[in-house]
């Protein structure tokens, strides 16, 4: 077991407890007995080489996957497989993917509205909120453009606006600058900083990049399916 989490006064938002993930088809153990606590308002980055298990950890935290053993709790409630995980994903977690995953036939404004279909807003309210979010990420002028008509940096900003659609308490970003040039990547990280400092958002970012990781308050290193250090301090095994 390893738990890198420091003791913080803020409430616990997400807790991974002794989670392991085995993929039986390939007989691969992607995560081994990992424990991690994310508090409300944290800005956490998870670093590690390819195949280290960081994406698996993100999937467990994002209710996309479930651990083979151990538990993941969100706001104190277990993300057990029988629970309606789609509701957690819709209302509690905003996803930002490396490849943006925007729907190619929808405009930026429409893409941002997609998660809101699971909410209670009317079509007019959805549209208004999507417009506000695109303005927040600096794309008010491009809201009627299709993804193909936007630069990669702009696409990622649309994806960030989409992740905020249902005002989730947690944002999970998987290599958010991986497909961006340094300028666009810098803009996205500046946006994350604003979301964290000004809006108090909780952010968990997976990255290969030391530069990206250093923007966060907490840096967790993962290797061979285990958390090996946090902020340079080795974790007990």
């Amino acid at each position, binding site marked *: 077991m390893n738990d890198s989490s420091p003791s913080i006064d803020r409430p616990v938002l997400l807790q991974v407890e002794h989670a392991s993930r085995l993929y039986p088809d390939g007989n691969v153990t992607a995560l081994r007995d990992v424990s991690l606590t994310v508090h409300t308002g944290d800005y956490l980055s998870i670093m590690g080489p390819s195949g280290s298990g960081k994406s698996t950890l993100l*999937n467990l935290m994002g209710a*996309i996957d479930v651990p083979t053993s151990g538990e993941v709790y969100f706001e104190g409630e277990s993300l057990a497989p029988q629970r309606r995980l789609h509701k957690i*994903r819709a209302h509690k977690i905003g996803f930002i993917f490396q490849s943006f995953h925007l729907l190619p036939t*929808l405009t930026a404004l429409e893409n941002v509205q997609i998660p809101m279909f699971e909410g209670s807003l009317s079509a007019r309210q959805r549209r208004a909120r999507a417009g506000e979010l695109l303005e927040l990420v600096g794309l008010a002028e491009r809201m009627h453009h299709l993804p193909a008509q936007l630069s990669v940096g702009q696409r990622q900003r649309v994806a960030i606006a989409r992740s905020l659609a249902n005002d989730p308490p947690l944002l999970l970003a998987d290599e958010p600058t991986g497909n961006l040039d340094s300028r666009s990547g810098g803009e996205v990280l500046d946006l994350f900083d604003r979301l964290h400092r000004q809006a108090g958002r909780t952010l968990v970012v997976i990255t290969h990049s030391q530069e990206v990781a250093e923007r966060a308050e907490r840096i967790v290193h993962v290797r061979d399916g285990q958390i090996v250090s946090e902020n340079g301090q080795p974790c007990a095994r």
Partner: protein
Amino acid sequence: MNFAQLLVRNVCRRKLRSVFTCLGVALAVATTVTLVGFSSGLQRSTAEAYEGRGIDLVVVRTGVTQRLTSSLDQSIGRQLRSVPGVDDVNPSQTDLISFGEGSLVGIPVHGWPVDGFAMRSLTITSGRLLSERDADGILLGESLAASLNKRIGDQVEVELKPFTVAGIFAGINVYDNMTAVSRLADLQTLMDRPGEVTEFQVKLAPRVSSDRSAADRVRQLIEHLHDAEGQPLGIAALPARQFVENSTEMGLARAMAWGTSALAMIIGSLQVLNTMLMSVFERVHEIGVLKALGWSTSRVVRMIVGEALAICGIGACVGVALGVGIVRGLSATAWLGGLLRPEVAPPVLLASVGAALVIGALGGFYPAWRAAKVSVLQSLRYE
């Protein structure tokens, strides 16, 4: 953007594929509208031909639903006339004959007494009604006379026997216009059924005809008639419209129309299934993204089924327009328009649209189930 707009946007992604699928559904609906329209038109025209002559009841052999196979002794007519509430009785022999060296097949020829009310009800537009002196004389409906290019005094061959055209009549409708009438005795001789008729056409007294319960009582009296030895006559008296609706010929026409339509609908359904399945396979990654963003499985299912329904809804509208156009076009042609008038009734249109939506739901269900099974984790890796 609302959910319906999203569905339409998805359908419009592969325009050509969606258009062809819509066309497939449209053809299925048009087939239904056309075939059922012709079947309903035939039934209505036949019923009108009875009702137009004031026939309230048709008396046939019990259990016989095929008009031509009913065989009754002509002498029963006297007993029928004596039933209280019966105003008049017309014995009728009907056969289907080919004319014009086989170019016109299955033309109904009625054998009626020259003094019967059915013969008297004919509206002669050229020539005269048949009389006792007109042995081997025949009356032709206007459309039949035109199709055979026959005038008064010309001869037509019926079962290789020459008949002389004595008159031409205006039928009650296009179906009636394609019939012929001869003297009852002539047709009985020709068909080698002397003293036999296929049915009795009964006209009720006006006070009975307008009173359903009184008419039912007359029906019961007729059905309980006995012969001289006290044996039941074994006859059934049916209201004209009911007799037509229950007849084997109409049942076959309806069954063929709906059967062919059902086949067309199944083909349409398979086409929708194929299109939606391809659409789901192409969008596995996208469906995974939607689920990752919090869409429930039921919303994904509704999206796919909704897209199938949108395709079928558009196809149904096009199909109804196409079907009505085909029916009207065919009705305008001489060879079919003169034979019968199809009926495009609102219930048929509603049934066709309803069937199209059902095939949409059926065709969309399996692809939707496949979409529901998409794994978020695997689909996000799938690009």
